[in-house]
């Protein structure tokens, strides 16, 4: 083939010397590029001002340049190895971490990696048409940065499958490209990743709420006793932080613009001035937050308990927790609904680890809402945004099949359905938001429904030509 894979694929896994891995990637890489061409961004571009990871050190990681998208160098990076690292939890606690997959845990580890890997390309597919309605070149660039990094995260998972799981790993790597978001015949594994991201408000909400779920999942895999997985996830978390940034500041700027319009016109209904009303923003929060809570799985899960005991998947910030890291005797309290009322159940902590992770996530989500309320207050408005009750609009877990209002009341199905339009984006809300989605590709200009960012990327000004169309 004569392709220099070390040049094409920046890496710190000694790819040049690994014949087995090279063979696997040689057949997979063309399929990845084909997938990118078919399912990646729909808007044609010449090049985009992107950050490319070329090494794991601080400097190698912050390499910026204009790059044609298909020529982006998707690399394979693992965080630096800690040669003294020990398993921090479960029945292997205190033993050296594993550099190879133990046969006993092959199926479970492969499953965890496949599920994580399946979400990465899914979001690229969900967001592929957003470039056609970008509010500015700055936002367009951020979208593509998120997309190529999700693509790199797919690479990271495929690397693990290729390098450590033999034939069945290669089969699974191929299947990651065969499933497609929203496809009737071969949908993505998790339901939330089969919904199209139709507009930029949804995109900001997705990167705030749903990518944040990804952050927490990666955080638990970073604790894994399987060291290559741990190191891969540690590096991915750094990139995930940028996606959170896009979401947090994206919603910031929508709220900011809405607040400006409300003050300017002294009118809550900013639709007629080309803005997005606060109650519509709230509905989008309600939707994306509740759907993302479902991604954590049921409140009780025996699989997750097994993963923990085996050392495959830990808790968020496992090593900072002050307990025995075995949890064989510990008890956890999880919410449930009993006789139509909210109640609590005491369960073995091992089987309630999904609820534990969800709790960490919820606390983190609160910070965003506080931040958006501070923007409102700075404009002299009331801090009205909130997170709905964890039981609201849930399809998975203890609240599935029940009808909980955003303020935490258990309702009859008919009552809930009658009020749903006030809580979740209704057809007219979506139509209004979509009507605002007109592309703005002129450097330095921005759509009227969102405020410009406070600063540009990598020290560049807002009017920098981030994307050449």
């Amino acid at each position, binding site marked *: 083939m004569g392709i220099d894979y070390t040049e094409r694929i920046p890496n710190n896994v000694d790819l040049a010397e690994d014949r087995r891995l090279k063979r696997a990637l040689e057949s997979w890489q063309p399929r990845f590029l084909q997938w990118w061409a078919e399912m990646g961004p729909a808007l044609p571009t010449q090049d985009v001002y992107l950050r490319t990871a070329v090494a794991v050190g601080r400097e190698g990681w912050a390499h910026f340049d204009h790059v044609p998208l298909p020529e982006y160098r998707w690399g394979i990076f693992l965080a630096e190895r800690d040669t003294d690292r020990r398993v921090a939890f479960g029945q292997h606690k205190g033993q050296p971490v594993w550099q190879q997959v133990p046969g006993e845990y092959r199926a479970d580890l492969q499953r965890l990696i496949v599920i994580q890997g399946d979400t990465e390309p899914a979001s690229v597919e969900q967001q592929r048409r957003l470039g056609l309605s970008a509010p500015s070149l700055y936002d367009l660039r951020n979208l593509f940065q998120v997309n190529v990094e999700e693509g790199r995260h797919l690479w990271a998972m495929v690397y693990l499958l290729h390098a450590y799981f033999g034939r069945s790993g290669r089969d699974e790597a191929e299947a990651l490209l065969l499933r497609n978001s929203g496809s009737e*015949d071969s949908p993505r594994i998790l339901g939330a990743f089969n919904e199209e991201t139709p507009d930029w408000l949804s995109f900001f909400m997705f990167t705030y709420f749903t990518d944040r779920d990804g952050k927490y999942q990666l955080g638990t895999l970073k604790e894994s006793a399987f060291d290559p997985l741990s190191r891969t996830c540690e590096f991915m978390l750094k990139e995930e932080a940028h996606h959170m940034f896009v979401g947090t500041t994206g919603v910031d700027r929508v709220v900011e613009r809405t607040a400006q319009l409300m003050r300017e016109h002294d009118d809550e209904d900013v639709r007629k001035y080309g803005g997005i009303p606060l109650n519509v923003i709230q509905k989008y929060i309600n939707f994306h937050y509740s759907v993302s809570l479902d991604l954590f799985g049921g409140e009780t899960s025996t699989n997750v308990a097994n993963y923990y005991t085996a050392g495959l998947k830990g808790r968020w910030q496992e090593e900072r927790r002050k307990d025995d890291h075995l949890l064989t005797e510990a008890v956890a309290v999880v919410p449930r609904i009993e006789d139509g009322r909210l109640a609590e159940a005491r369960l073995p902590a091992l089987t309630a680890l999904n609820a534990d992770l969800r709790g960490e996530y919820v606390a983190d989500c609160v910070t965003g809402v506080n931040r958006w309320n501070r923007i409102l207050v700075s404009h002299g408005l009331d801090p009205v945004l909130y997170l709905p009750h964890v039981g609201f609009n849930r399809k998975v877990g203890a609240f599935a099949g029940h009808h909980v209002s955003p303020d935490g009341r258990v309702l009859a199905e008919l009552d809930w359905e009658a009020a749903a339009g006030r809580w979740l984006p209704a057809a007219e809300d979506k139509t209004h938001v979509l009507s605002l989605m007109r592309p703005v590709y002129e450097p330095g200009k921005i759509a009227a429904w969102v405020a410009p960012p406070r600063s540009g990327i990598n020290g560049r000004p807002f009017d920098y030509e981030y994307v050449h169309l």
Partner: protein
Amino acid sequence: MSFDTDPGRYRHLRLEFDGDVARIVLAVDEGAGIVPGYDLKLNSYDLGVDIELHDAVQRLRFEHPEVRVVVLTGSLDRVFCAGANIRMLAQSSHPWKVNFCKFTNETRNAIEDATACSGQTYLAAVNGTAAGGGYELALACERIILVDDGSTAVSLPEVPLLGVLPGTGGLTRLTDKRGVRKDLADVFATRSEGVRGRTAVAWRLVDEAVPRSRFEQTVRKRAKEAAARSARPDGARPVELPPLRPDGYAYSTVTAVPEEHQVTITVRGPEAGDDGWLLRMTRELDDLILRLRTNEPELGTWVIRTEGDIDAVLAAEPGTDAWPHGEIRHYLKRTLKRLDVTSRSLIALIEPGSCFAGPLLELALACDRQYMQDDPDRPAEIELSHANFGDYPMGNGLSRLAARFHAEPGRVAALEKEQGRRLGPAEALELGLVTFAPDDLDWDDEVRLALEERAALSPDALTGMEASLRFAGPETMETKIFARLAAWQNWIFTRPNASGPEGALRSYGTGRRPVYDRERA
């Protein structure tokens, strides 16, 4: 525990009808387990779910003569059926687990029997992941159509996840029914994540893998093809199966009287003019067997008697398979097979006034021993008919007489000539049809001693011995399934590696890993 239900009371299944195609849709109600302590998540099943499936399979044959194809499918988005509920198994006693497995196996066999004997072909429309007992349910169907979406798999994860074997014939049907190569079956049965799509077809685990967009259309096409092959009669009238309404263990034709360690079951022959007797007796006996097995595990000996008129019994069975007689014959065949695999000592008492003739003589032949009273004043008699020469085969494919005289086929041929006349005790003994023929003076003591002696023996040894002796002759898929369940699975179930405090079955779902004793036994 009652096995009597009807579609109006189902909580876990939906029956849908479209011309000659019926659909059984598994839509298990999570919160409606038959005993407390577990949730029936992901279309997993317990005895309550299987009682409904048993009822549905039975009713489709009698109440729906128009149905030629039955599509078995799931109501959930991504899961067809997750198999037997693991928490239910983990909290159940050993006898409960075994009895549950036996019953579920009998229903899987009944699905195959409907396909083979009743022109009702079962198709598995596997529209989501089928794990363990879920895949075994599909294996009982004539054809398996799997959705090919890159995620949906079929699997038998019992060995890797639970440290036990698939409990409803999964391993045997892989190799013997579907012809899966043993090395691939070995990989399949140890790979917890299972096998998807094209590979599942290549390994013969399923018949076809179809994209979701063409799935329903393909299922309909296969249903039409199977319906066209069916020999089910046109325009037949449905036969209703009304509720049985027993009073305790007293039914209209069958009564059971429990005593210490044993139960006496009396089957009464038809009264004059009772046209519905054979079907009603079969249903009542079937229900009684299931209830005694489930509710009376300590009644280790079943004494089987009959009362009535021999001619009336013989007249009740017309010897034709015209609708609905064929269905009734196959139903009694399945009920007699239940008796064959029942883990109780079965003793037939042939007394004056009894009516062990034709189909009811099969009851006596199914027993481990036959005692016939020899009273010169009141002669006990039996009579052979065509029913005893192949109408009611055992699981090994032989008639009970052919199995009884496995090494002497000439005796069966000779017995065929004895049809149509009454046989007294001496003659029955001479022909080898009964074990003992005590005279009226000895009868009470002989029977009492035999029963008391039996009750004193080890129940486990008796169960194993009886199961070993009942099935002389060739193995079939059916006998292999029951034999392996009884031997291997029951052994594995009770070993510490499965059910010890650190065993796989007990630790499943707790987050603890099983600890195995590495010694091979």
